[in-house]
């Protein structure tokens, strides 16, 4: 099994190269204003200030693509950490209600107290996501360990539904906002700009590095809690740190592009298939894959009803939900 795999470094290189190609394609593909592949390269290295296509690449497409990469990597890492912490293959931000909670937080703030502005909504997203995550963990009895994984998922789904209903309520009360909020709820990269990117990257980078540092401990956790304790791992500390990282990654991603789901569920499994069970290996692979997936679905989302756009999150959900069904069917419950 292991012999048939490429060496880790090669895997990273290969995935990194494909990510670069996809990112390049996303810089020029499906644009309402015709952009050539060469424009995309020139805008990066040899900017011509009079060319509108190059301006579009630099001001719209580049931050959008970078944002896709960051968001994808963040959500994938969050998924890996969540699955590692709960030892539940179905754990992911969207299934366990973190997405829905963050969305509810933002929707509440933007309908009830819009004067808080961008900062307010990000904080609301973090608080909302944190509250649902705690609630789901408590209700699902995930803190105590044990393998009552279906309980965790049911708790997550129930809390998600609850948040979704309340979010919908605030949308309908704020009337006429429906379509805009729906777009946001699905998660779209269309409004990604340098300003949002500047807000996002320090937090994301911190979260990503943190999760890489956590990966050896996650490996130990997989040996079972008893063994982990014997090996000297502090369970409480790990779980707290892990939860904090998950929140940071998910809330920062969601507050900047909206509630993109299923990356955290889908990607860790793909990464495991490629990289094996070692968290130190498949976590970086998952980040690359997550970035690829989000950028790719952003490209698809632009092509479906060109020249109009569909939110990338809606496309991802259409890919992710069948995979969820597949995962459930694979498992022996």
């Amino acid at each position: 099994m292991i012999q048939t795999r490429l060496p880790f470094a090669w895997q990273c290189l290969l995935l990194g190269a494909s990510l670069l190609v996809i990112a390049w394609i996303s810089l020029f593909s499906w644009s309402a204003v015709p952009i050539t592949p060469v424009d995309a390269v020139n805008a990066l290295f040899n900017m011509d200030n009079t060319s509108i296509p190059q301006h579009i690449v630099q001001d719209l497409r580049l931050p959008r693509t970078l944002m896709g990469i960051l968001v994808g990597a963040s959500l994938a890492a969050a998924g890996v950490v969540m699955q590692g912490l709960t030892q539940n293959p179905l754990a992911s931000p969207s299934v366990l209600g973190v997405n829905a909670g963050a969305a509810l937080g933002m929707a509440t703030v933007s309908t009830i107290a819009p004067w808080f502005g961008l900062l307010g909504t990000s904080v609301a997203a973090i608080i909302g996501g944190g509250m649902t995550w705690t609630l789901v963990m408590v209700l699902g009895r995930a803190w105590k360990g044990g393998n009552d994984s279906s309980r965790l998922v049911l708790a997550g789904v129930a809390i998600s539904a609850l948040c979704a209903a309340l979010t919908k309520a605030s949308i309908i009360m704020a009337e006429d906002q429906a379509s805009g909020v729906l777009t946001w709820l699905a998660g779209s990269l269309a409004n990604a700009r340098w300003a949002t990117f500047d807000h996002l990257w320090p937090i994301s980078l911190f979260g990503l590095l943190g999760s890489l540092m956590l990966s050896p401990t996650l490996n130990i956790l997989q040996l079972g809690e008893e063994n982990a304790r014997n090996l000297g791992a502090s369970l409480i500390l790990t779980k707290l740190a892990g939860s904090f990282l998950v929140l940071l990654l998910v809330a920062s991603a969601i507050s900047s592009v909206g509630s993109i789901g299923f990356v955290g569920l889908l990607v860790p499994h793909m990464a495991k298939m490629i990289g094996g069970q070692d968290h130190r290996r498949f976590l970086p692979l998952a980040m690359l894959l997550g970035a690829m997936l989000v950028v790719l679905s952003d490209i698809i989302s632009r092509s479906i009803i060109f020249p109009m756009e569909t939110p990338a999150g809606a496309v991802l959900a259409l890919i992710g939900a069948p995979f969820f069904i597949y995962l459930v069917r694979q498992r022996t419950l």
Partner: protein
Amino acid sequence: MALTCASTLLFSALSQAASSHGSHSANTLDKPITVQDSKGTFTIDYRPKRIVVLEFSFADALASVGVSPIGIADDKDPSRVLPAVRKIIKPWTSVGTRSQPSLETIAALKPDLIIADISRHEGVYADLQKIAPTLILPSRRETYQDSLKAAAIIGKVIGKNKEMQARLAKHQKIMAAYAKQLPKGVVVQFGVARDDTLFLHTADSYAGGVIRALGLANAHTGKNDSASRQTSLEQLLSINPDYLIIGNYTHPSIVDKWEKEPLWSVLKAAREHHILYVNPNVWSRCRGIMAAERMGQDLVNLFHPNQIAPQQ
């Protein structure tokens, strides 16, 4: 407060209803009027006095011939009714939202005619008919031409056919006068902006129709046109209209954010300061004869900013 208000209305309605039974015969017409509405033929053999309308465009049509509806589905926000309409009609009772009007409030008003919208109220058509004869016409997502047709039908039903025809003829004249003051064939695009979305109203929309009727041109917004569509800055750049008309539902809206971006100056309309901010309520919600005239007025103001003092 609202309850007491409603109940006093109820009592006045009751007393009026008692008298209206007597006067009903006086209103009876020699020959019943028959028109085609969205559900087939609609026949009425009296002149309606107590009319409830469930869309703004119908209120506009009534006001155009000096008739006051007693109830309007105004989303409980009187300011949503076009100011010009408000000036003409007498105070009305709100019957709730346009999407889910309160049927019991309508019933309490004892109307003798209800004008409903086929796209919103088809589901309660049967119930509305139990309250009063219901004329059901297109309003939401209708075109400009359909809106004028609906107004003509309403004119017939309320027994003011002659007045309505005259008003429509006057409307054509007013619009033609506006058109004369406007350049021919200039590409104008209207859109409503919210917090994080911009919806362009395409050539198929009501606003698109009014823009065409004023001799201006619609921007080409691409295939499978629907009446309004969400647009990103990138698409707006490719549409690149000569004039951009924005209705902001919120402040700051997405357009306010875009204005600060360097790419905004690439827009033809931005470069030449051809962006006009209008009341989004008038341009997208009201629809109707007077709403169209107000839109024409807005456009003339845009093209001749020095001639007339800015509206509002």
